[in-house]
């Protein structure tokens, strides 16, 4: 078995603030191998944005890492700036949430797509142009010749996101990170993009990380799901249409909140009472305990152990039997 | 956690108004002194204002007493800044000149800001024909050369303090008008303005309850930064002989005299220039500190406490 593509060992992201250090991400252990499609699900305050920024090595200056992120066996934060930059265009590609700002507004698309391939020194500009045009066809844009000469503001959100996917795929990434790629799009356009991403997995010789707050999208697209709550990774489990493998109380409560999954005749919308604890108000014990419907006295005092199953799934809960 | 400086209580509009501004004025100086420039500015401005309101604290001599025998004396213990060509004590002239400078500057800035506020509100909120006409008027005024116009006006109606104030107000209102208007255009599309209109608020209600409180910050900063410019302007006009009429003590006039007698008595220029520099510096520092204190709050609406 070769080395995992991406491995996070006890990863924490700490921000320096005027009120003291704030841990946006705490002790995350996650392993992603080639061919995986992993969804990272979390609401606001879950730390998923910081986690993804840490993987992309694009954290703001006042943030530091504790623990390790290993990419292909190499410690990402042990590399110097030049090596990290080389990785960002080459090994790790990102599709961003906002297709409206991901592109330079004053340069035509074609030129930008050619520039994204600047690591391919074996190709000249003409070859890169042709490669870009082929990729546009593969993401479903009918007339690539026209698109290559257009400016971002002339295109709609759905088309821009397709081009964003094309740009990411052009770099032949080992790791493709899709950071809430459909949040800014309508439902019908969202479906098109998800279908496109599903086809794109055959074009990615590596792994895909799909970050979202929408559990239903994860169900449509991913093999495994990692659920984050208030900076901690509370569960990692395989995905099936009924999400039967999810056992953590938060995961199940979050699933139950999806209005599309409500049983018939249910007149009240379920919620999770309470609110996410502020980063500087952490307590001992389980992070979810104040809002958990199944909390036991032990949950308030001791942090839950990580129960690791044979298929690699992890649950951090006292109430889930090993 | 200190209380935010602005608040509208749901009772007694006047009481609310006083409470609001009273608290703001009390809290502001403390925040301004957090940086050295703000503290320096505050101190200088206080000195100038004190000279203006209570000149007798600083000097016992009269600024207008003529002592021809002592004309053009260099600085000495009797006359800290020397005397001018008519034998008047320059130090007391400088101190009393602060009153003139403050009166002209503060009055004209306040009037210009008030006019600019009203016109800018009408133009920005009403848009359409009224807006276009006001912009045209504003551009016309701005394109007139102020100094020449001032000289012509003085030639027509004679020199006086009120005339000077009027001229300055006419020529500085367009700046306030533009700033207020552009802010109103932005705020007009804000959700809370739409919400108020959806509830049935009339335009005056929206303008004075919602727009003005959100405009006050940038406006106050502009006013503070404008005062040194007006002081310099007034001094310039007086230097040309067309400003405040004699014998009222006036920094620009002193500077003018110093220019005439520069060979015999170079200390006069010092007496005239120094207070202008001090006042300009003080108000500029104060204005910048105010901008730092008020503006970030304008942008985000936060008063230092996080959720």
């Amino acid at each position: 078995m070769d080395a995992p593509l991406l491995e996070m060992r006890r990863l924490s992201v700490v921000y320096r603030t005027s009120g003291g250090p704030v841990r946006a991400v705490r002790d995350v252990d996650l392993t992603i191998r080639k061919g995986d499609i992993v969804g990272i699900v979390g609401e606001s305050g879950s730390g998923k944005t910081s986690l993804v920024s840490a993987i992309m090595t694009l954290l703001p200056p006042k943030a530091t890492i504790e623990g390790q992120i290993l990419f292909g066996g190499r410690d990402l934060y042990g590399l110097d700036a030049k090596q990290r930059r080389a990785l960002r265009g080459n090994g790790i590609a990102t599709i961003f949430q906002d297709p409206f700002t991901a592109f330079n507004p004053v340069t035509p698309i074609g030129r930008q797509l050619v520039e994204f391939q600047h690591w391919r020194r074996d190709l000249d500009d003409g070859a890169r142009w042709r490669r870009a045009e082929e990729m546009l066809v593969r993401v479903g844009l009918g007339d690539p010749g026209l698109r290559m000469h257009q400016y971002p503001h002339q295109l709609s959100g759905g088309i821009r996101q397709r081009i964003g996917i094309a740009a990411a795929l052009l770099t032949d990434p080992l790791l493709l990170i899709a950071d809430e790629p459909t949040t800014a799009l309508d439902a019908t356009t969202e479906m098109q993009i998800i279908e496109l991403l599903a086809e794109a997995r055959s074009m990615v010789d590596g792994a895909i990380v799909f970050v979202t707050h929408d559990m239903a999208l994860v169900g449509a697209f991913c093999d495994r799901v990692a659920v984050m709550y208030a900076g901690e990774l509370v569960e990692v489990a395989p995905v099936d249409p009924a999400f039967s493998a999810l056992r953590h109380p938060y995961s199940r409560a979050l699933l139950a909140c999806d209005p599309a999954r409500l049983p018939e005749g249910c007149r009240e919308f379920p919620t999770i009472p309470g609110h996410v604890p502020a980063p500087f108000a952490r307590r001992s014990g389980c992070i979810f305990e104040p809002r958990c419907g199944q909390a036991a006295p032990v949950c308030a005092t001791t942090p839950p152990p990580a129960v690791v199953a044979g298929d690699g799934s992890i649950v951090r809960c006292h109430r889930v039997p090993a | 956690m200190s209380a935010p400086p602005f608040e509208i209580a749901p009772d007694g509009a006047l009481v609310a108004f006083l409470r609001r501004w009273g608290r703001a004025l009390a809290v502001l100086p403390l925040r301004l002194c957090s940086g050295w420039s703000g503290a320096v500015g505050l101190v200088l401005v206080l000195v100038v204002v004190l000279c203006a309101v209570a000149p007798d604290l600083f000097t016992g001599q009269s600024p207008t007493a003529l002592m021809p025998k002592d004309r053009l004396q260099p600085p000495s213990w009797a006359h800290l800044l020397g005397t001018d060509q008519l034998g008047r004590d320059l130090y007391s002239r400088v101190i009393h000149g602060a009153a003139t400078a403050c009166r002209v500057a503060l009055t004209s800035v306040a009037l210009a800001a008030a006019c600019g506020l009203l016109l800018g509100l009408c133009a920005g909120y009403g848009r359409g024909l009224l807006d276009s006409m006001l912009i045209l008027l504003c551009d016309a005024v701005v394109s007139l050369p102020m100094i020449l116009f001032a000289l012509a006006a003085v030639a027509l109606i004679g020199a006086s303090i009120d005339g000077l104030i009027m001229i300055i107000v006419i020529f500085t209102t367009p700046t306030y008008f533009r700033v207020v208007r552009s802010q109103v255009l932005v705020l007009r599309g804000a959700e809370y303005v739409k919400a108020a209109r959806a509830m049935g608020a009339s335009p005056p209600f929206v303008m004075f309850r919602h727009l003005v409180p959100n405009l006050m910050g940038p406006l106050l900063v502009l006013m503070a930064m404008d005062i040194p410019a007006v002081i310099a302007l007034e001094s310039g006009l007086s230097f040309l002989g067309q400003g405040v009429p004699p014998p009222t003590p006036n920094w620009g006039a002193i500077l003018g005299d110093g220019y005439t007698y520069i060979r015999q008595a170079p200390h006069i220029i010092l007496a005239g220039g120094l207070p202008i520099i001090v006042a300009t510096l003080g108000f500029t520092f104060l204005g910048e500190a105010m901008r730092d204190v008020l503006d970030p709050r304008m942008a985000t609406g936060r008063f230092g406490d996080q959720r």
Partner: protein
Amino acid sequence: MSLVLDIQGLAVRRATGGLLARLRGTGREITIVDGIDLEIAAGTTLALVGESGSGKTTLAHAVVGLEPIAEGRVVVDGLSAEGWSQGWYGGPWRRLRRQIGVTFQDAVASLDPRMTVAASLAAPFRIHGLRGLDLRAEAARLLDQVGLPRAFLDRYPHQLSGGQARRVSIARAIALKPRLLIADEPTAGLDLSVQGEVLNLLVSLGRDLGLACLLITHNLPVARRMAGRIAIMYLGRIVETGPAEAVFANPRHPYTRALVNARGSGARALVGEAPSLASRPSGCEFAARCPEAQARCRAEAPAETSIEAGRRIRCHFPLADASPSREIAADPAAGGGLRAAAVRSKGANRRI
């Protein structure tokens, strides 16, 4: 049953091009919303569903006189108004607005950042000149009604979370006991785990106060559970209206079917995207993306017709009255169509 809201033939247009273009006569008018006929009976909820650019927010604004009405009129509880709010006090619009409460998409931004919660809640009373009331007590009562503690009276909008701000804006909207509440995307920007709070509040207020509600949303499952009737908008026109359950179980317009099945099984994604408002196609505006489009659709724009009691549709060839399509809620395989696509492309990928 008496109608709280009756919109008749409403159209909203906006002129493009600057002053010079208009003087020259080359300025164009784009139609944002056209031919709207909607009715809401007392105490019922109508969900207005559409994607971005469909004009649903513009329609809501036109109902309260924030947008100029080019054609048609709005009748609220017998009070009728046309044109839009002009003049110093707005004439008929002023009376009409007392009967309507509005909550906006961005709840925090819809509260004046310089006013405390108490002041914002007192604003409706002040605007309508209701003096002699203890405004602070009224504000406290409103907070109780929406389930917020009285300590919030002295907080500022930036000190509220998204859900709390939304509840404050709902409190403000019901302050004068209106007959109709317009809720524009009540769950926008809220986490899934707190959306229920706001929605449950709207349901209970509707029940307790006998409030009619115009719910604007793009979230179909929410619309289905909250509304008795539903109207689907596409590019500024209503393409289908009817009882919520019937429309979901049995959509008759191809666009409605696409929306209903967007996350369901057997779904086929629509091709292309909605055309821009500036270049509306002739004929049926949905024809370019419609899987059932025929020649007549591209030539002639369909009018709104009634196909059953209480159901209206704007289509030349409504879908057949089929057996209920797979319902999203009852089907745990939500996303099955996409799932199938994912499975197809997986190939020999290893499973951990």
